[in-house]
């Protein structure tokens, strides 16, 4: 019934659905059905967003605490005792094992809860039905489950913070044996069990979501919305969901085997271990096998995080440059290329694990190939700005910032992807700086840009632009101040996850730079309060949003100010053109300004149509007369 896009029978289908929809409007859903266990994709998106943002602030605060330790090692953290309790030891310092716990939680939270659930969960849910012209997701129920599994995962992870032995502390990559043996670090006791349960729930959430996104994009596009007319946002969400669907189960397998090793005495990842004064019975397992399984998800995960941000950026840059995105096909092609390649580069995280050095060469080759589609994307963004007419909305600022961060973090990938150079730089701050720019900050900028851009559609009100400008400039400058100098520290060989650098002669330098980075991190984090205030304030008191505040072409702006369940009160609009007809020559002669929305048929714009578009009209008319003659 919901296959609107297939052939001419669509009209009937839409009516059938409309009827169904009208029935809904007769009875008001109760509070619980409307806001808590809702099946409406827009409300679910907001749930993902708000929970994601809460996590983002917690993950950020954790990084500030360990940055204090790294930047100001002499400082007493006694004043944090009310929050951290026994994590602060008698001398007023952060407990060493809890430092590792903070690093681990910061990574886990940011990668999975903020940049996967908070980003994909929010915008895939919100934009897919609105931009493909569907009443809702393919399965509203599964969509609801997807959020509540994420919520459960969040609860479990949050609870683990309060365990006496602390949360998981073996780094977000949870390499065994460290993560398998409670004797090795206290966080590998109950904390690790909680971590594994939480991640298992999270994977379920992300699979339920992903299946829904894929199904909706394939089956529920409105009439006329062919794949070649999909907004780049939808392309990005679609590919992200496919990548997630193929890679998350592998992490699930790894987690499951680790659970077996931990509690059932199996030896998948453990072998030849002597710890706590005794030799363990485990033999024949391989710790490296876990790393292969982990990075088989872990690397695609980078693109699961990044692609939605790039999709959002494509849409925002084209809209606010008032210019079609340059090289639409190349953009889609490079995303597909990145998606495919992301599955065959995982072992570049493992060049110095003792893996066969010949394999290292193969993975270096495959890794550096990814630089090519990434470069194409960067060039296309820049060319989109060229000879445009740019309006700097906060969303646009963050999108331009994203492109800059994507480039700056991307180029250092060329260094790290080269295995000969990775020998020295592996597990140093160079890596930390690299992925925080290209994956952390860039994706975070994409998320924030998306919030500023689609806030009017989410809440029917505008966010304050001036606060947005200030937020952007402090954040943008702050992120560079934090992560640019961090490369220097990495080049000097400072290893990651070190509680203190004073043990070694080679890492005695740069105390001032570490202090500087910490100060910049505090500044950047504080600036996010502006965003939090703007966000909450605007939900309730923001200016009422116009229907199409940015002059955008995509379908979501054809809905009412606050779209209800079902999105369009009347029939679903039909799509007639691609989403990037900005500043089309001669559009003014057809009565349009600098944009022609996707639902405007070519027949209404005879003056601005290109030759092939006129041919399309002719063809369609030919079809119609054919049908009439039947």
């Amino acid at each position: 019934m919901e296959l609107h896009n297939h052939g001419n029978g669509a009209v009937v289908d839409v009516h059938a659905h409309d009827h169904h929809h009208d029935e809904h409007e007769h009875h008001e859903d109760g509070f619980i059905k409307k806001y808590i266990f809702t099946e409406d994709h827009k409300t679910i998106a907001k749930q993902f967003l708000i929970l994601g943002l809460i996590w983002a602030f917690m993950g950020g605060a954790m990084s500030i605490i360990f940055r204090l330790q790294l930047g100001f090692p002499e400082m007493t953290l006694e004043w944090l005792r009310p929050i951290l309790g026994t994590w602060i030891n008698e001398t007023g310092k952060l407990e060493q094992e809890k430092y590792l716990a903070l690093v681990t939680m910061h990574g886990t939270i940011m990668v999975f809860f903020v940049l996967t659930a908070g980003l994909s969960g929010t915008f895939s849910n919100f934009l897919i039905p609105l931009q493909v012209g569907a009443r809702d997701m393919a399965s509203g129920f599964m969509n609801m489950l997807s959020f509540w599994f994420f919520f459960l995962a969040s609860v479990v992870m949050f609870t683990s913070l309060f365990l006496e032995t602390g949360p998981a502390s073996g780094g977000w990559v949870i390499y065994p044996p460290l993560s398998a043996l409670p004797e090795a670090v206290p966080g590998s006791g109950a904390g690790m069990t909680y971590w594994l349960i939480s991640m298992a729930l999270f994977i379920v959430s992300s699979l339920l979501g992903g299946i829904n996104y894929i199904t909706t994009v394939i089956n529920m596009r409105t009439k006329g919305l062919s794949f070649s007319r999909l907004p780049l946002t939808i392309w990005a969400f679609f590919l992200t969901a496919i990548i997630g669907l193929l890679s998350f189960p592998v992490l699930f397998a790894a987690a499951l085997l680790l659970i077996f090793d931990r509690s059932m005495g199996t030896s998948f990842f453990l072998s030849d271990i002597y710890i706590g004064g005794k030799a363990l019975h485990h033999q024949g397992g391989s710790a490296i096998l876990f790393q292969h399984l982990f990075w088989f998800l872990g690397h695609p995960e980078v693109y699961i995080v990044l692609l939605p941000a790039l999709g959002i950026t494509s849409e925002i840059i084209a809209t606010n440059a008032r210019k079609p995105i340059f090289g639409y096909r190349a953009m889609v092609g490079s995303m597909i290329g990145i998606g495919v390649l992301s599955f065959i580069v995982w072992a570049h995280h493992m060049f110095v694990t003792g893996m066969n050095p010949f394999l290292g060469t193969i993975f270096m080759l495959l890794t550096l190939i990814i630089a090519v589609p990434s470069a194409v994307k960067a060039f296309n963004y820049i060319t989109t700005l060229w000879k445009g007419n740019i309006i700097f909305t906060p969303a646009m600022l963050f999108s331009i910032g994203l492109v800059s961060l994507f480039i700056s973090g991307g180029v250092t990938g060329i260094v790290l992807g080269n295995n000969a150079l990775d020998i020295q730089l592996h597990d140093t701050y160079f890596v930390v700086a690299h992925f925080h720019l290209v994956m952390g900050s860039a994706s975070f900028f994409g998320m924030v840009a998306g919030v500023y851009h689609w806030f009017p559609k989410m809440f029917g009100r505008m966010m304050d632009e001036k606060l947005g400008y200030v937020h952007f400039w402090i954040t943008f400058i702050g992120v560079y101040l934090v992560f640019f100098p961090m490369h220097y520290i990495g080049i000097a060989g400072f290893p990651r996850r070190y509680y203190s650098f004073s043990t070694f002669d080679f890492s005695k330098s740069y105390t001032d730079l570490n202090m500087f980075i910490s100060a910049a991190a505090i500044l950047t984090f504080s600036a996010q309060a502006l965003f939090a205030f703007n966000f909450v304030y605007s939900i309730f008191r923001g200016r009422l949003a116009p229907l199409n505040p940015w002059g955008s072409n995509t379908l979501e702006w054809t809905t009412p100010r606050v779209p209800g369940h079902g999105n369009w009160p009347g029939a679903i609009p039909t799509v007639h053109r691609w989403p990037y007809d900005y500043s089309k020559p001669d559009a003014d002669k057809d009565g349009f300004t600098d944009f022609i929305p996707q639902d405007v048929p070519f027949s209404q714009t005879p003056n601005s149509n290109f030759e092939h578009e006129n041919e399309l009209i002719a063809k369609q008319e030919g079809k119609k007369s054919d049908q009439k003659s039947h």
Partner: protein
Amino acid sequence: MVTVIFGLIGLLILGVFLLLFRVQSLVTILRNTDERGGLSNRINGALMLLVPLAGFFAAVYHYPIAAKNFLPEASSVHGKETDSLFWITLTVITLMFLITNAGLFWFAFKYQYKEGRKVVFFADDHKLELIWTAVPAVIMTVLVLYGALIWNRAMMQEPPKNVQVVEVMGKQFAWQVRYPGKDGKLGKYDFRLTNDATGNEFGIDFEDKNAEDDFIPREIHIPVNKPVLLKIRARDVLHSVFMPHFRVKMDAVPGMPTQFMFTPTKTTADMRSQLGNPNFNYELACTEVCGKGHFAMRFLIVVDDEDDYKKWLTEQKPFLEDKPEFKGKGMKSLRKKSVASNEEIKTKKDI
């Protein structure tokens, strides 16, 4: 008292900001000034140029100060090679970084909104796209080939006959090393023989004759200009051998021995005089998170000239000399013991 005053001042400032914000947003609504291309747009446009420029000059100014502590002096054969590749790559990516960012921010500044600007409807250009697909592809190919060459030379050589073998074992939270002794062969080991209480921390199997002259020093000594083969393992969790000056890094994995071969080119004394630092020492650190003491697994490495090295070797006493009780004990005696204890348990059960 001071905190209260600071708190009050903070609250006051916050209140003022809130008030200003409210006034500002109301004025915006009243004047409806947020049409395209207003003052805000021009300010943001100007910042698109000024901020990156300021960042560029700050980085240029700071670079020489920071660069003093970059890559520590390389003192291995392959380290010199990876360093040159590093600087070449860094030059290439700095150029890429500058060109693309310059384009991005210059266009953002130059094409900021202007009433009536003619926007070019420029949707694609295959020639252009072909160029910027091909250029990165060519650059990448060169870097891959160069990298593969150096990697193969560093990592895929067969160890020569005269190689100096040193076993490095990581544990929580220290490194330990074992030398093969006069016979040049390390004795076998088994993790089940490990016993900190009796002193066999390596789990050496002394039924193997090769183990009899193995010795366990407090520092690593290696001869200059001679290949050294590190046999690397861990006995509890993952560790990673990192010798920053030799550009050596290799994980230590329980149950899977790894190795790394390198040739040091400068003695510790050479480095001390070259760097003008009489306290300089080569160091070994851990770079795979391994728990509480991860940041403190320091071990010293001394590179000697040939004479000093020989002298040092003769001073080392085999492990068995200190602990003669281990002589001849290995897996067989362990098995006997465990069979005996099993039977004991059995008989106890039977009773």
